[in-house]
């Protein structure tokens, strides 16, 4: 199951896992994108910040496919906003509602889906794996208070879950992409900022969604990977 899997990075992950033999089901709140899913990938509309929708979606997969073996918590929202913006005429500080929304979209969603799927795995004694999509922003990207806090929370959750669930044969890892060539990235960052980030990266380029998908598959397939947070940033953070 891939959340936010109907487009962009999520779809790249879903397609790659399918190519590796997985039966893939995506959750996404974008009904139009769900209608364009490639053959063989099923999907359903769901807002993963809503507990009742998450429970219903996971229960449906339990009935149709016997449960979730692999969860990729990919759904999220890249949000950039400085703590204090002196360029705004109001000179205002970070909007608290957008801070909460960012944590809901990136951290609470991963918690909700992860907890429901983990419960199902424990109940069914499935030796599954959860992959959380984090970000290099968790290191503290300036201009991304909310997003960085959310992704740092995702990293912490990943380690906690690896420790708690490992005894039941359930692994949990995260991949922490740098700047990836997706529509979400282009929406979140101005072209000049992206150009600067490209220059800061030792590889002098953005990552491709297929490269993140490859890393997700690696963490899924390696049975000894547990609690790993794999940076995938072209060396940006070294």
């Amino acid at each position, binding site marked *: 199951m891939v959340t936010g899997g109907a487009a962009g990075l999520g779809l790249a992950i879903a397609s790659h896992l399918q190519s590796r033999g997985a039966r893939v089901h995506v959750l996404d709140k974008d009904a139009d994108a769900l209608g364009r899913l490639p053959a063989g990938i099923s999907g359903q509309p769901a807002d993963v910040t809503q507990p009742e929708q998450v429970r219903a979606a996971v229960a449906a997969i339990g009935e149709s496919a016997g449960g979730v073996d692999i969860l990729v918590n990919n759904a999220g929202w890249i949000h950039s906003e400085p703590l204090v913006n002196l360029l705004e005429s109001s000179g205002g500080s970070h909007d608290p509602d957008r801070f909460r929304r960012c944590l809901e979209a990136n951290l609470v969603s991963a918690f909700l889906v992860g907890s429901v799927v983990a419960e199902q795995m*424990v*109940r069914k*004694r499935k030796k599954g794996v959860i992959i959380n999509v984090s970000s290099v922003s968790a290191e503290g990207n300036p201009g991304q208070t909310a997003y960085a806090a959310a992704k740092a929370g995702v990293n912490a959750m990943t380690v906690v879950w690896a420790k*708690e669930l490992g*005894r*039941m*044969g359930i692994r949990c890892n995260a991949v922490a992409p740098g700047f990836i060539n997706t529509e979400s990235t282009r929406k979140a960052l101005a072209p000049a900022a992206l150009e600067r980030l490209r220059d800061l990266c030792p590889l002098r380029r953005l990552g491709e969604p297929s490269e993140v998908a490859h890393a997700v598959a690696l963490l899924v397939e390696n049975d000894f990977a547990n609690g790993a947070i794999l940076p995938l940033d072209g060396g940006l953070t070294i």
Partner: protein
Amino acid sequence: MNPAAPDPGPRLRRILAGVFRTPEPSLRGSLKREDLGNWDSLKQMDLVHSLETEYGVVLEIEDIVAMTSVGEIARVLQAKGVKIED
């Protein structure tokens, strides 16, 4: 002490001693979760994993929730056909 709580045999005592890091002689049927300082929800997961692996049984959620003392663990296993006196 609950006289009806069955005491575990050597095999079950050994398993429980491993899970709870407790000397085997203390693991009588009357020993309750609150008597052990480390019997939390994570230990319950360890316990389930150890019992299922050792005895080849599957514990349902109702079984797991019912296991609140050594005696109750023994009762649950007995109900699944395990000879706890072994």
